[in-house]
């Protein structure tokens, strides 16, 4: 279905700031109002700065760890503090530094590289940032309440259950981290939609800068990889708060279920961290060779296959849990296979190096350092895939060495290279080549001294996560060396901060394209204006600045392109066909607003109040958040009109179309929801398989209600589709009626789950609890359908929408189809239980 051919004229003046100039429309709000900014440049830089602060905090904690271990039997930290310190070190580094800072770079760079004026869900970016910030603050505040998590960043059950970890420490972790993860998944949706739907004219998928490919795959991996942990955290927090026995072996739960869910997230996480950094390498390295990346197609294929393979390796973190030999062999083979796409990328970089005469700049030094360290980390990774070796090395310092080689080598070194490379873009000034070399060598030497030593420490039998060790076992000198090395590494980071602060004031001005790069973000002299492009130039090459002389021959603001005129005083960028990159629509972008921030604060109240067990306050947060979301969506999109866009294009505004950004964003969201649903279903099937006697002991759901609930799911989807069809035909009365029916059936279906499960005691067995959790999740989605359908009805009744503006109905139909599918699947599983299939 498409309305592209329905060319209609714009009826008259509407929202927008037509009295303002293009520059004024895109200007940052002044003073404190800048907090309401939705610009990807501002949000991206905030992600980067906040992530870097968490990096410094987590790095400081690492120095405490190293200082404690400098001599045997040290009393610098007591055991409790040490456990808190290493737990927070890992958690902050993984959840609040690595992912957010890389997403920050992506949020900042993607529109600039692809020829867009902003990401296409800018408010979602602002919302995500505040979720991240507030979630991070919740996690950190645990130190103030003397309740810092001390169960390890992996939070294994039963140690993390309330029986063995009373108090709030584990709750701080589960609630704060889950809240911060909202930012990761919203950024994923945002990046998927932006990369697929907002590229410069002519930028087909095959002409996309390789960095965008890396980010696209990473974003899909986040959408699928984070849900298992989010669902696992919800289950564990429910167990802590309400005593549901998901992981309790006495009632048919299984501690291994937590490990599976955790590593289903945790392993892809490693690649989620590595891939954007590898994308930076694939961007930086060709610039300094002066030649395009060799083997672009191979690299893209390698990145895609890495995305798939990474979801098949999780159990190699669990080789010592007593898995059957066959599983061990399969996961071992899968783990070694990931060396192939890694090898392809490494040899593609080597082949690129051979293409020209590389320049040894500071970013390039960090790329070389990355290659050195990461190749070593990859080789020890292959060693660890060998099961008999893994049994020795697992949970020893060998693994600590390996994971830091992969993560610091694979992520931190490219990141620092990226800082040196893109700093001129952030600040308009160059960082110091001299200081940069010192930073590199201090970090490189410090890193290798610290962590290379640990391979040996681990083989000599030192386990991870021990706050002290007796002398005379053969670990004393090795630990001393590691600790000294860590101070050198820290000195390098410190010097970097000095250089960064210094260059903002006294670095030499960068000018236009200081490194002679080929990608579009360097089109303007730094600092690029906030709207990125006066006109969005057509792109015919992967390195437009190298191959399209018309971009370099003229002053950047006079470069010709699409959307060179602004109408209606609205922020706009061009929307493209996801594959060919041809312009198909004009995307109207939101102006600065406080609503996403308000919604994030309300969600923070909801989470924080749960932590404080102030349940009335939870209700306030929940209602406030719903209000925020309603306000957010109230103003309808400008669909239904067409405008001239320059370069001979006449394009619809915010087209209601399967190829449109909203639909792509919806698919990304559904992917996340399906992954959440899949995680809880996995839990049910896992327990059914491993604890059959408890499955037998679980009471049967009601067959009739299960069948009716499934039918209800189908009806919800059908009514939502009918409401969409009516709305798209501008039959608003009919659409409103069908919307009410959609809401009613969704509510009835959610009630159906309740009736189906009445005989099942969620406190009786873990399987019973999982069935309730699964149904509760689907019921929450049905609740969203109710809310959304009533929202659509209210907007029509209030005459807030005009003919053509059926975006919300179009989107709801897609959402209801997904929800209907999950309802039918959940009801089917309950019916299978009821018919005795489970028992």
């Amino acid at each position, binding site marked *: 279905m498409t309305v592209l051919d329905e060319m209609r004229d714009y009826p008259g003046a509407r929202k927008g700031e037509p009295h303002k100039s293009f520059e004024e429309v895109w200007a940052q709000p002044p003073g404190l109002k800048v907090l309401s900014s939705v610009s990807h440049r501002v949000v991206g830089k905030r992600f980067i700065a906040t992530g870097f602060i968490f990096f410094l905090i987590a790095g400081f904690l690492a120095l405490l760890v190293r200082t404690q271990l400098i001599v045997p039997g040290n009393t610098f930290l007591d055991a409790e503090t040490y456990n808190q310190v290493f737990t927070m070190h890992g958690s902050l580094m993984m959840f609040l530094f690595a992912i957010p800072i890389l997403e920050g770079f992506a949020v900042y760079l993607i529109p600039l590289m692809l020829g867009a004026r902003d990401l296409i869900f800018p408010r979602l970016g602002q919302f995500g940032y505040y979720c991240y910030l507030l979630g991070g603050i919740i996690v950190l505040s645990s130190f103030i309440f003397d309740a810092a998590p001390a169960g390890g960043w992996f939070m294994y059950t039963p*140690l993390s259950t309330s029986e063995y970890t009373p108090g709030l420490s584990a709750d701080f972790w589960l609630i704060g981290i889950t809240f911060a993860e909202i930012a990761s998944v919203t950024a994923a949706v945002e990046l998927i939609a932006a990369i697929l739907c907002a590229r410069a004219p002519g930028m087909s998928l095959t002409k996309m800068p390789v960095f965008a490919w890396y980010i696209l795959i990473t974003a899909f991996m986040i959408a699928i990889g984070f849900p298992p942990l989010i669902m696992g955290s919800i289950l564990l927090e429910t167990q802590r708060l309400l005593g549901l026995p998901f992981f309790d072996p006495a009632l048919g739960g299984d501690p291994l279920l937590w490990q599976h869910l955790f590593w289903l997230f945790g392993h892809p996480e490693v690649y989620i961290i590595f891939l954007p950094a590898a994308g930076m390498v694939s961007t930086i390295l060709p610039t300094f060779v002066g030649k395009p990346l060799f083997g672009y197609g191979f690299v893209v294929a390698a990145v895609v296959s890495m995305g798939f393979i990474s979801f098949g390796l999780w159990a190699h973190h669990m080789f010592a849990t007593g898995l059957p030999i066959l599983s*061990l062999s399969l996961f071992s083979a899968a783990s070694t296979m990931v060396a192939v796409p890694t090898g392809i990328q*490494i040899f593609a970089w080597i082949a690129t190096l051979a293409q020209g005469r590389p320049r040894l700049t500071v970013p390039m030094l960090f790329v070389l350092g990355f290659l050195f360290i990461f190749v070593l980390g990859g080789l020890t990774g292959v*060693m660890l895939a060998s099961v008999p070796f893994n049994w020795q090395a697992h949970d020893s310092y060998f693994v600590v060495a390996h994971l830091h080689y992969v993560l610091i080598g694979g992520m931190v070194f490219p990141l620092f290279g990226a800082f040196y490379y893109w700093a001129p873009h952030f600040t308009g000034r160059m960082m110091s080549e001299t200081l940069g070399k010192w930073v590199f060598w201090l970090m490189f030497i410090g890193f290798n001294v610290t962590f290379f030593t640990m391979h040996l420490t681990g*083989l000599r*039998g030192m386990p991870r996560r*021990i706050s002290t060790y*007796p002398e*005379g076992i053969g670990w004393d000198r090795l630990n001393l060396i590691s600790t000294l090395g860590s101070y050198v590494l820290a000195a390098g980071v410190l010097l970097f901060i000095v250089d960064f602060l210094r260059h903002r004031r006294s670095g030499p001005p960068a000018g236009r394209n200081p490194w002679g790069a080929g990608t579009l973000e360097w089109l303007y002299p730094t600092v690029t204006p906030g709207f990125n492009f006066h006109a969005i130039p057509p792109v015919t090459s992967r390195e437009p600045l190298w191959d399209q002389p018309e971009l370099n021959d003229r002053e950047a603001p006079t470069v010709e392109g699409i959307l060179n005129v602004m109408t209606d005083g609205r922020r706009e960028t061009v929307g493209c066909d996801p594959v060919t990159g041809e312009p198909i629509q004009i995307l109207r972008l939101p102006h600065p607003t406080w609503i996403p921030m308000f919604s994030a604060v309300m969600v923070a109240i909801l989470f924080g109040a749960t932590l404080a067990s102030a349940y009335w306050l939870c209700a306030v947060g929940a209602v406030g958040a719903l209000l925020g979301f309603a306000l957010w969506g109230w103003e309808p999109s400008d669909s239904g009109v067409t405008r001239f866009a320059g370069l001979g294009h006449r394009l619809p505004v915010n087209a209601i179309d399967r190829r449109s950004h909203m639909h792509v964003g919806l698919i990304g969201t559904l992917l996340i929801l399906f992954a959440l649903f899949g995680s809880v279903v996995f839990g049910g099937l896992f327990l059914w398989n491993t604890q059959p006697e408890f499955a037998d002991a679980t009471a049967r759901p009601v067959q009739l209600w299960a069948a009716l609930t499934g039918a209800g799911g189908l009806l919800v989807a059908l009514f939502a589709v009918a409401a969409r069809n009516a709305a798209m035909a501008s039959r608003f009365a009919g659409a409103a009626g069908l919307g009410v029916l959609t809401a009613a059936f969704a509510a009835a279906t959610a009630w159906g789950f309740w009736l189906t499960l009445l005989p099942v005691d969620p406190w009786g067995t873990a399987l019973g609890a999982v069935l309730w959790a699964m149904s509760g999740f689907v019921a929450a989605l049905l609740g969203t359908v109710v809310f959304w359908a009533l929202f659509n009805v209210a907007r029509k009744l209030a005459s807030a929408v005009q003919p053509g503006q059926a975006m919300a109905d179009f989107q709801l139909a897609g959402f209801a189809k997904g929800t209907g599918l999950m309802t039918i699947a959940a009801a089917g599983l309950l019916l299978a239980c009821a018919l005795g299939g489970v028992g």
Partner: protein
Amino acid sequence: MNSELGEFGAQSALVAAGQNAEWALWLTVLMTIAGGVIFLFVLWAIASAWRSDGGGRTWWIVGGGVIFPIVTLAVLFALSTFALRAIAGPQDEELVIEVTGHQYWWDVVYDPEGVALRDANEVFLPVGRPVTLRLKSDDVIHSFWVPSIAGKMDMIPGRVNELTVTATEVGRYRGQCAEFCGLSHPLMSFEAVALEPEAFATFLGNLQGEARDPVRPQERQGQEVFVEAGCPACHTIRGVAEGAQIGPDLTRVGGRASLGAGMWEMNLGNLAGWISDVQDMKPGAEMPSYNHLSGPDLRAVAAYLESLSQ
């Protein structure tokens, strides 16, 4: 911490004294050499690519990134699977030792389905004979690891994991919990003692009897204190107080080389310190500090426990 654990023997995967550890060490050496060669090759490739100009061929990517890793990994996978089969293949299950992890000590039962001889914090193994370790946990997840004998295996509540090991050399080998298990996780170690088969048989024989009777008056007083202070609520001393299994079995406690799960040398001073100050020496342990015992009582009970060697 006045430990002298150097005497307790190696805790190193590089000192192999068991079949599993030997296989793993062999793989370690092999993979380290192969990995080193590959690493040097990649460095060389980078260096020559850096110097060359206008090179760069597709076959580099196909050769270096696809064919080479697949061939190498296939070889490695075959070797490692072979080693895995050798380690984990079906083995004679005559001798079973059940080890249960607790926060923060090890309950050890020899022949759990037969005579069920209970001991703690030391695992004796006969050299040259496969032993099936049945690994369980009573609270949180622990992991059983004696690097010189075998790789680690987790002890998971609600599950029983089996690990078959064959010690190959007589000696004492330190082991340690390898899965983070709480506050005193670093203080949860133990010893594996590999004995000649005859010596092992003697050890098992000695383990069957009741505890040694107190001889000296102080030891007799110590036994009384032991009973009166309520120790039998958790600890068993066969022939004196039986049944309780909450804490380690103390029937031959004085015969162990170490105290507090492989952490301190077994002697009178450490024993007295331990009883009166457990929570200081091992924070979070289930046993409270018995700091209300009078000096003479404390010395007596320590002397009694030290005398319990078979």
